[in-house]
């Protein structure tokens, strides 16, 4: 159940390029699809407006020629074990890039349509329940 996901977890950030490909599709899409297929808690893809990395080429949306490979960040919050299970596949899929791991504490993880009977379980950790007047 989703509420059991609260607690100490690991935030993985994957930094890649927008033009990176895997199996004929954009790499970020391939990674997100694999995460979803393997039942991970979630993933979010963000596009950066500018940046540089290991190959020291500047990418920016300000200059047309440099805007073809803008930075993409995929953020995944999961248990440490689940993240570690994913690493071999990521190593194979990703060419150049950066992966970081941070500790994160999940205080809320709930779907949009929570049943009234379940609301107590899904309340943000640390918030006092509303008192009846």
């Amino acid at each position, binding site marked *: 159940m989703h509420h059991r996901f609260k607690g100490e977890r690991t935030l993985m950030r994957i930094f890649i390029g927008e033009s990176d490909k895997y199996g004929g599709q954009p790499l970020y899409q391939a990674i997100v699809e694999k995460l979803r297929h393997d039942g991970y808690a979630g993933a979010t893809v963000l596009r950066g407006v500018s940046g540089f990395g290991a190959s020291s080429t500047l990418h920016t*949306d300000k200059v*047309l020629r440099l*805007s073809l490979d803008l930075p993409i960040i995929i953020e995944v919050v999961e248990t440490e074990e689940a993240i570690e299970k994913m690493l071999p596949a990521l190593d194979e899929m990703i060419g150049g890039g950066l992966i970081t791991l941070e500790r994160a504490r999940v205080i809320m993880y709930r779907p949009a349509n929570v049943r009234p009977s379940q609301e107590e379980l899904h309340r943000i950790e640390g918030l006092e329940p509303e008192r009846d007047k």
Partner: protein
Amino acid sequence: MILFITIGGIVGTLARYFVQGWLQARPAVGAFPIGTLAINISGSLIIGFVMRLATGSTLISPETRGALTIGFCGAFTTMSTFSYETIVLLTDGEYLRAGMYAGGTVIGCLLATVLGIGLASRML
């Protein structure tokens, strides 16, 4: 990427050739380079629109972006033709027309890009 840019470039060059040809052949036009002006302004509109849409969403892949901007817009619009035509107007003593052409191109293209960006922002 190179392939996409090349195809965009081929289409852009041919589009410029035919659009310029059609516009300059209009009877009312005469010797004013309206063809170049029109393609530079419309190309600026297109690039503003495509780049805003592309960077504000994932609708346009980097390769398609390259084909449409570096390829198509890069080939469709022309700085060299504009420079040449302005200099010829000046050396022919047509200072007013040269000024109108140069001013019209710069202001028109910048405004067109702003308009293109605005249209794409509306869509997003």
